[in-house]
């Protein structure tokens, strides 16, 4: 019941909520970002970061630093904090924390499948996987073996005359086998039932697979939060609805001018959120950015985002969405005794890592004038 969480939340979640609020106080502030933006080299960045909470993670790195090292170490810190919280958590908080990482798992699966299709090295792919979304080693190797078996068939088919048709069939067969045999043990299994019916898998359809999986994941997460009830349901519904709406707009903008049909586009929109269902109807028929803008300006919460952009410009849309998301995530900390703070903290950390990556890249490539294009201040 909404309003009485305070009486029983602290039995299981009080300690972890206090810990996550402590971590939140360690997020970089505007002053830190200003210092970082004025750095000349990556070693300066390392020096400034050693005064923050990232110090212990970066201090042992040898001197010619790369931006990827900085990002990797910062992500490692996030993963350590997440694992610490996950091992302390009981049900239903532990399930909630696991749900937060399924998005990264989906990205990892798509990365491995695409990479193996393009014959990349196993180790290289493993390193590129996001650590928060790792499966255990057994499942990973099964994925590789199934994809590699397909590769063997491809090589065999190369020597036969009807290369293309058999190869596509081999790919399709093995992808379905992949889903049926391997991924059924992972938490992503229920999301694949909508993808198994897809026939061919070239690059375009990998993106459709990713978006369909993500749609299934968001709806599942939404249902789970509704089942939890109380303040968690209220706050998470708002955050997830914003995520669903943002993805709908991004899918629309990215599929303008491609061969994705309107029905296919509508199938990728989630079935909740402020834009559901009338906004989705209108977005499905949009053919350029100004039409999208016209649709979105009818919704008061999104109007300020779109009014900040001048006509025909979409590069700043990403940053505007990130800013709005950060604002909503910070607001969820205003209330106590709910699980939304965990979700918000993970997302804010990821935003901070994105900021650090942008700043490091700008400094490394000597483009400091563009630093403020994409850094979203959290506090």
């Amino acid at each position, binding site marked *: 019941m909404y309003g009485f969480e305070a*009486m029983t939340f602290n039995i299981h979640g009080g300690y972890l909520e*206090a*810990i996550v*609020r*402590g971590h939140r106080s360690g997020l970089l502030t505007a002053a830190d970002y200003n210092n970082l933006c004025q750095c000349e080299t990556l070693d300066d960045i390392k020096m400034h970061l050693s005064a923050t909470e990232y110090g212990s993670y970066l201090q042992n790195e040898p001197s010619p630093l790369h931006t990827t090292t900085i990002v990797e170490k910062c992500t490692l810190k996030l993963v350590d904090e997440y694992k610490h919280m996950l091992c302390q958590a009981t049900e239903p908080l532990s399930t909630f924390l696991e749900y937060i990482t399924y998005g990264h798992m989906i990205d990892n699966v798509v990365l491995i499948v695409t990479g193996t299709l393009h014959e990349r090295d196993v180790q290289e792919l493993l390193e590129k996987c996001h650590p928060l979304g790792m499966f255990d080693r057994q499942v990973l190797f099964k994925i590789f073996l199934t994809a590699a078996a397909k590769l063997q068939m491809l090589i065999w088919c190369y020597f036969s005359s009807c290369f293309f048709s058999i190869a596509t069939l081999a790919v399709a067969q093995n992808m379905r086998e992949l889903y049926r045999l391997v991924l059924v043990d992972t938490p992503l299994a229920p999301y694949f039932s909508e993808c198994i019916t897809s026939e061919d898998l070239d690059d375009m359809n990998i993106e459709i697979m990713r978006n369909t999986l993500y749609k299934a994941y968001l709806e599942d997460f939404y249902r789970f939060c509704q089942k939890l009830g109380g303040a968690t349901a209220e706050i998470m519904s708002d955050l997830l609805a914003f995520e669903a709406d943002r993805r709908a707009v991004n899918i629309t903008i990215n599929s303008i001018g491609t061969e994705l049909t309107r029905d296919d586009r509508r199938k990728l929109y989630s079935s909740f959120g402020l834009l559901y269902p009338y906004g989705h109807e209108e977005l499905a028929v949009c053919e350029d950015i100004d039409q999208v803008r016209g649709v979105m300006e009818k919704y008061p919460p999104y109007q300020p985002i779109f009014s900040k952009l001048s006509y025909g410009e979409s590069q700043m849309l990403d940053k505007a969405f990130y800013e709005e998301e950060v604002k909503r995530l910070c607001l969820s900390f205003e209330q*106590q005794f709910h699980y939304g703070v965990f979700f918000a903290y993970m997302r804010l950390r990821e935003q901070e890592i994105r900021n650090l990556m942008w700043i490091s890249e700008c400094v490394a490539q000597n483009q400091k004038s563009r630093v403020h294009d994409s850094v979203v201040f959290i506090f």
Partner: protein
Amino acid sequence: MSGAIVIGASGSWARALLKISPYTFSAIGIAVAIGVSVLGAAWGIYITGSSLIGAAIKAPRITSKNLISVIFCEAVAIYGVIVAIILQTKLESVPSSQIYEPESLRAGYAIFASGIIVGFANLVCGLCVGIIGSSCALSDAQNSSLFVKILVIEIFGSALGLFGVIVGIIMSAQATWPSKV
């Protein structure tokens, strides 16, 4: 019996209720006074304590000041103990011929009511102080100037327990058993 004639109860449920000994009511009142107060204090302490422990990992300076919240919760249990001791001194023996006199029943009910008042007032007071103490610990960890302001809210909250104790003591002063004639 003369008691039943005086009271004039007609239905069997009402008669059954009136036949419960006033000693029972008094004993239950004393039990509730201490038992439910301690429940409230414990509830409040665990609500505050879990947040305090978690927040003190990042901000160790908050531990000593925020023990005040725990002390306010503990005070609620002490009120319960004091009132229970006072109530049990009010519990006197009366000769068995007078046990269902109106005066006896009144004394029994007075002790019972006093116990319930104190018990439940301390329950909600302990809960209130505990929840505010948890928020106080978390806010103090972020910004130490907030501590004193939130402490004022806690002081108002702990006054609730005090109201219960006052009314309970006044009620228990009513508990005069019939004198042994």
